[in-house]
């Protein structure tokens, strides 16, 4: 761990200015990931800009009938907000599927989107890693890769994004509001995280100095037919091997709108709009779900330890779609899979 200085930002503008002008500076909010990474010597910021006192708190109604979640709202505040529970139960469920109450109380909405991969090699400075040290190599591809990606990988990196929350937000087509040196902009969540390609050190499309101010959930109704199904190596407190956020709208027994996002399988929440479109106008059936799953997993590539994830993902997609279609979302307390 390196030595660093600390300052508390008084305004969004100040925070942006401090980080934009100093490549060694990092924002810190809940710190649930950054502090770990600093202890492991993976992140070595010279300066920490504390943003916890910025006015980015609270969950507000938007003019369009959606919700705007401040970047500093804690994960559990979001999960247990009655408006989120009523209108975006998928998001509430996904958040509760992750971490522990202690972590969810400390972790923020913005920070959750920015958490870094749990790849063993990324965390271990005693090993090469292209994400940590560009050009050093990717031992995961030929090493232990149980928890690694099967979709959208590159020869440089096979890491996954670990968030549950982001997977639900991807399905809900959330909008990420950011402020930066060049003003404010809105990034659709599908364009927020990126694939590793030949620049695996870059996780997302934020520019230097840009800060997440809020995440907006557009008005939409997926409150009846949805589920967040997370499959992992123990029944709680483990990152997803595969997770599926499924949201459907049904009319007269036919699907009118479908959203599906996968976690634990790629460098970003994985969506395939063409696969979702296959459901439109059709009656739910496991046969159809299987075809949708196959479309989503088209091109999936397994490695030595994680090849099983392709089959597991297919099964999880089918089950999640059945849960959603039946209006029986997965409980996050009863560990029996419905």
């Amino acid at each position, binding site marked *: *761990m*390196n*030595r660093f200085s600390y300052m508390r930002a008084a305004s969004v503008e100040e925070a942006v200015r401090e980080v934009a002008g100093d490549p060694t500076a990092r924002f810190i909010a809940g710190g649930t990931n950054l502090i770990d990474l600093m*202890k*492991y*010597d993976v992140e*070595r910021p010279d300066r920490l800009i504390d943003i916890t006192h910025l006015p980015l708190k609270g969950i507000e109604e938007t003019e369009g009938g959606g919700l705007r979640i401040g970047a500093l709202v804690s994960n559990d505040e979001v999960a247990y907000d009655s408006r989120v529970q009523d209108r975006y139960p998928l998001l509430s469920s996904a958040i509760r599927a992750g971490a522990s109450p202690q972590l969810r109380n400390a972790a923020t909405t913005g920070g959750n989107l920015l958490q870094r991969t*749990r790849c*063993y*090699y990324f*965390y*271990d*400075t*005693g*090993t090469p890693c292209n994400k940590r040290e560009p050009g050093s190599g990717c*031992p995961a591809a*030929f*090493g*232990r890769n*149980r*928890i690694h990606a099967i979709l959208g990988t590159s020869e440089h990196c096979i890491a996954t994004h670990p968030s549950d929350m982001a997977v639900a937000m991807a399905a809900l087509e959330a909008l990420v509001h950011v402020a930066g040196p060049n003003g404010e902009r809105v990034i659709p969540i599908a364009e927020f995280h990126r694939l590793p390609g030949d620049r695996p050190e870059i996780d997302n499309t934020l520019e230097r100095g840009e800060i997440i101010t809020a995440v907006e959930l557009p008005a939409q109704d997926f409150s009846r037919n949805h589920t967040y199904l997370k*499959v992992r*190596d*123990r*029944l*709680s*407190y*483990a*990152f997803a*091997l595969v997770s599926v956020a499924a949201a459907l709208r049904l009319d007269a027994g036919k699907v009118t709108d479908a959203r599906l996002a996968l976690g634990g399988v790629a460098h970003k929440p994985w969506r395939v709009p063409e696969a979702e479109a296959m459901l439109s106008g059709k009656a739910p059936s496991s046969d159809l779900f299987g075809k949708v799953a196959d479309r989503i997993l088209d091109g999936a590539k397994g490695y030595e330890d994680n090849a*099983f994830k392709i*089959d*597991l993902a297919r*099964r*999880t997609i089918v*089950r999640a779609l059945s849960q959603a279609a039946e209006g029986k979302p997965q409980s996050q307390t009863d*560990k*029996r*899979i*419905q």
Partner: protein
Amino acid sequence: MQLSKGLIGTPQNRVDGRAKVTGQAQYAAEFDTPDLAFGVVISSSIAKGRIASIEAEAALAVPGVLDVITHKNRPRTAWLDRSFRDEVAPPGSPFRPLYDEEIKYSGQPVALVVAEDFETAVYAASLVDIAYEVETHMTDLDIARREAYVPPKKRGGVKPPPSPTGDAEGAFAQAPVKVHGEYRIAVEHHNPMEMQASTVVYGQDGTLTIHDKTQGAQNSQGYVANVFGLSKDKVRVISPFVGGAFGLCLRPQYQLFLAVLAALELRRSVRVVLTRDQMFTVGYRPMAIQTISLGANPDGKLQSIVHDAVQTTSMFEDYQEAIVNWSNLLYHCDNVKLTYQLAQVDTYTPCDMRAPGAATGVTALETAMDELAYAVGIDPIELRLRNYTETDETEGKSYTSKELRACYQLGAERFGWSKRNPEPRSMREGRELVGWGMATGVWEAMLAKTAARAMLTLDGRLEVSCATADIGTGTYTILTQIAAETMGLRMEDVTAKIGDSSLPRSPVEGGSWTAASAGTAVQKACQSVREQLFKFARQMDSSPLANASIEQVAFAEGEIRLLNDSTARVTFAAAMQAGGVERVEAEEKSSPSFLDAARYSGYTHSAIFAEVKVDEELGVVRVTRIVNAVAAGTILNPKTARSQVMGGVVFGIGMALAEESMLDHNLGRFMNHNFGEYHVPVNADIYDIDVIFVSEHEDKLNPMGIKGLGEIGIVGTAAAIGNAIYHATGKRVREFPITLDKLLE
């Protein structure tokens, strides 16, 4: 002599519970001392080779950095291997931290950065630049096993496999029913909550007071004295509380060496604490590959047992445990062949981990027995009863006691085993397949030579002391119970002192022997105090006990009372005053009776029943119910005993489903070295655990009939769960942990 009944065998709260939950209990890294310096360990990133260079200038230039100690500048230590060999070291050449430039395993400590404060040491450590000359390493047991060997020198305390009997291979070939399988158990790390830590307090008189995280204060003391050439009376090791150990702290770990080295070099107090990832650079339960062949008659009677095991060890020590020794203890068979081999890999030496040997070997054996039950088509309990042995057939001895039949029976009743449909895949609840499986558990009941002191003072308080440890097992509590009951005092009048090398001699706390060994020593010391006290009471002027013998009195409520006339009584205080003493003290030893050891074998037994619910489509397993029926002689404290067995069962659930230290063979390094990715069970994984203590009369091992409970809870548990998974799904997984991918195929 009659004991006042009432405390032994009753559920009692932990006497140290309040101190623990209120944070009053101090652990090794929590002892503070003036002028304390902090050491941070730098670990090797390569598995084999040489340190080419260490650039420490940048680190040394940081204000507050006191030293960067490496193999190049370390102070001299002992020369002989013997000096580095601790009480429980396996044969070989013990690892010497910072000894030379050679790297023997990934994560090996290569430098210690010492600074005025922890943060400075951590920062400075990040500035040390180490270059290596890499050599080819090998960590893969599948390759190393080609050069497997029978360890030429046996490890003390570990029985080698018994000699073959009959013609196991021939009998197998002719057996009408055969099962044969290869079983794999992954590497596990102990992962106690408390990290390895040592705080060395440097005395100006040259003495060292060391707060070490250890299961053996005197083992650490002896190690430090031998390695650093110090007289034992200059080294005191204190370890009153241990935050989980599971065998990892039996041997001194390298943080102790480094902290002492730095303290002696800098002539000041030093603390070294390992990080969680460095907890994967110390001992572990080795990976083992086992093959078992069971041959039986159509009625299930075993005709042949062949059990072979090969297991990893380091390049420098032959770590050994008893993996294959168990079958003929549980089952009658005339043709038995058991072999045990080691294979060297470039990792650190493995280390005893809860039920070392048995957890590995019995898991395979009891899985194979389940396979045999299906092969012959009889109930798994019935199969075990048909092959039940009343004698230890490995040594031709009787058991001191063996209520295993009662374990099967009472466990089955509590579990509802009779309602089981034996057909795999026959039980279902909603989407989930339900499986019921069972297995047997067995562990040695030992007594290790241990001394204890008892001291009664005029104020009616009793202190009992022994150098043993309480690693969360309840040792403080049971010693208090035994002392209070023996002396006729209340538990609150008794203080137990342990975890200090200056106390009466004790071996390391392990092997499930502590309750029996330290308990017996405390009882004997208290009895000795009673005798002295009684002598004083009889000698009083006009003593009401003048004509009594010690058999005719009871010690109760701080008094000595005549059994047949309770008005005839002398208080302890009056007796002491009559004797002109302010304290009565005695030190006694417990030691195994060699006469009995030649005739009898002592073992703890259990029957474990598991219910699993399996979502077959997704491979998700829930262990919804465990019943563990244990026969372990006298249960001193059913409350702490139950906790111990439950903890063992949770360990077993981890072994069955989750725990695996993943080696990257390209790097020779364990990769999932944190609690996020090394999965131990969490609360959500644990449903009902029902512990039954089967009544067992034990009168040969020790006066109170204690057998010990530290390990028995894990033994057999993983097999019972694996067997339940087979019953649920029809899939036999012989590779532990049974992660969900193994159920998807």
